[in-house]
């Protein structure tokens, strides 16, 4: 009877787990990655040979809080990509678990929201694991320092999802500091939104 019980539970449970403690990843070295882009083709760091830094935003299609930031992400990319800080959005959600997160749905979103920044599918969740990403929309900035890409910012895009005009623009401030060679605060800003459920190994 207990065995059956166990079987039932397994049958109804989807094997998901998540990182719950948010640790600082600032200073961590990031290996240049590549991934398929919803706009077509593969993204690689060679797409932006002039980049000094990159804003890496973990996002997805189904998270209502992430959804609020798409326009701001477009604006950021338009403003800062020409200055050497492009924005790269990465979807780490398990497309077996969420039907909204397939590559097809990502392609539709690119057209629907007129997305101008590269929108990548992290199918194996390996990029998210490398960053220790925990939520969408969690935001990192990586900067090239003596030939290595290092995380210099970990946090959020800004601190008001619905009213950007009331927000402190943390990501923009970081980009401006980089462009002005100013130091970047090392404090981690806790991320929130939709948990990235990592597939059990």
């Amino acid at each position, binding site marked *: 009877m*207990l065995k*059956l019980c166990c079987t039932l539970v397994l049958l109804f449970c989807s094997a998901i787990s998540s990182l719950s403690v948010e640790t600082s990843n600032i200073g961590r070295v990031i290996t240049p990655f590549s991934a398929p882009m919803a706009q077509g083709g593969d993204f690689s760091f060679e797409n932006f040979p002039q980049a000094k830094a990159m804003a890496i935003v973990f996002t997805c299609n189904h998270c*209502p809080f992430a959804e609020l930031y798409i326009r701001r992400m477009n604006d950021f990319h338009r403003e800062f990509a020409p200055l050497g800080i492009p924005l790269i959005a990465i979807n780490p959600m398990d497309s*077996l678990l969420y039907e909204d997160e397939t590559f097809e749905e990502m392609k539709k979103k690119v057209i629907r929201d007129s997305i101008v920044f590269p929108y990548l599918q992290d199918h194996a969740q390996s990029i998210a694991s490398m960053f220790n990403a925990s939520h969408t929309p969690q935001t990192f900035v990586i900067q090239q320092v003596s030939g290595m890409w290092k995380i210099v910012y970990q946090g959020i895009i800004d601190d008001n*999802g619905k009213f950007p005009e009331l927000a402190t623009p943390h990501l923009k401030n970081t980009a401006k500091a980089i462009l002005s060679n100013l130091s970047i605060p090392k404090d981690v800003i806790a991320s929130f939104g939709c948990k990235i459920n990592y597939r059990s190994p």
Partner: protein
Amino acid sequence: MRTLISFCALFIAFMNGSAQTFNKLTIPDSLHGPNCTLRIADTFAQLRSGNQTITGAINGHTFWGPTVFVKKGDTIRMNVINALNDSTTLHWHGMHLPAVMDGGPHQVIPPGTIWKPYWKITNDAATYWYHPHLHEMTLEHVTKGVGGFLIVQDDQESALPLPRTYGIDDIPIMFTSRRYVANNQFAVQNTAYGDYLLANGVHDAEVTLPKQVIRLRILNAEIERSYNIGFSDNRTFYVIGTDGGLRDKPLAVNRLHIAVGERYEILIDCSNDELGKSFDLMAYNANQLFGFPGGEPAQNGQFGSLLNNKNFTMLHISIGERTTNPVITIPQTLIPFQPIDINSASSTQTIQVMGGAPNSPMPFHFMGGIFNINRIDKTIPMNSTQKWTITNSNVFGHTFHIHDVQFNIIARNGNASAVGQHEIGWKDVLYLPRNESATFIARFVDYADPLHPFMYHCHFSNHEDDGMMQQFVVVPPTEVSEDSIDFSSISIFPNPATESIMIDSRDIDLYYVSIQNVNGKTIMMLPQPEKGVPINVSALPKGFYSVRLTDMKTKQVIVRSFVK
């Protein structure tokens, strides 16, 4: 519309330090059975100035969900859609129903999946509720705000001269509190108490009540905190209902202890109040005995809170115009109470609270072990009447909740006269202070299922998540033969399907049906599907689907498939 208005009101009247600023109490939308769709989703709410708070809610609300109205005798059919980012469950708190429909930790709904329980309402008219119950995730999902009221109506209640105009003179209020961490997000970990009270998801709530008799249906949906309620003008109020039914007659009180998970229906007589008068519903929580949840003196930390050991306003009330056909008198009698005969109990179950002490290696749990989803802790014969005694020779108060049944508390510390007057009646949660015991009696009359257990647990969701929960099964009087079954005749038609499928299971009763898509993801869960009732698949995308069918008698599983 209500949601919109209240959202604007909230946005304009931002939370600030001033006690004089109030926000209009929202009344959850109502949803009338017997067919109900509840879509649980992640969302966000503007609860205070600054960033929005990530919340979870139902059917477009930004916190909490609609009030489901059902009639006793009806068969309610629920369509629960989990659009959350996480797996969850939805438990029908207080309902008597088959374990497989109950929404406990075994009925996990993965994201994107529809769960379709149904049951005949046999509960009496009272205020019930629904909330997530996924083991180790209950605190997080409840904290987000997922849940709602479930109000049962019946002929006996309808015949009484009680206020019942929803949102006007019959007000459901769910009280809870939250602590905020960075960026206005709800604290989930290491937090037993919130710092700011929410009434139906509104901070510093106020309501205008008409100048007549008002019915409040109060739910304590806190993590741990009890409320010792009363009114700021110290007026008498009248308890008319407990968790699972109306009392035999109103009980006049000035104070009422409402612990986590409990519901009390009360009447307040505002018929002689002056128009424009205002007063407050209060929690008189200051200077309680040690062990009263929320009596700890600290202002912060895991067991501290800005509301601890304090008297605080729960709801600011102003008196408005009388409605047409108001109720202006408190009724003398309600529903005759026929308690369970104490002598009919065939056995006694004993439960002992363990662990949880400072420096204890074990969290709070019941003797026999912390929760194990694969261990059945008690086996209850169907058609039996049982006494359960829960003993708490331990460091703190708890609330004890049992699924499946409504019970009568028959003794506290072995003493029948120590049972509070207010808790005489039908209950599904009891408050268990430290160094005390409580005994209840309940009947386990049907829905035998040797496989699928019901839960009993502490209703503090942090304690529950830490393992202060155990399981019981109700077993049929005779052992079921476990012969093999001939499944060959089971078929699914039409195939290919367009709108719906039918399962022709001949004389085989089905225990569970689940439908998987081509990737193996469960997209629909149907506990004990009714014979001859088509399963609507019109919303599914085109493709190949497999159907897992579990037989009622042997629990053997076979797989069929169809194409859409």
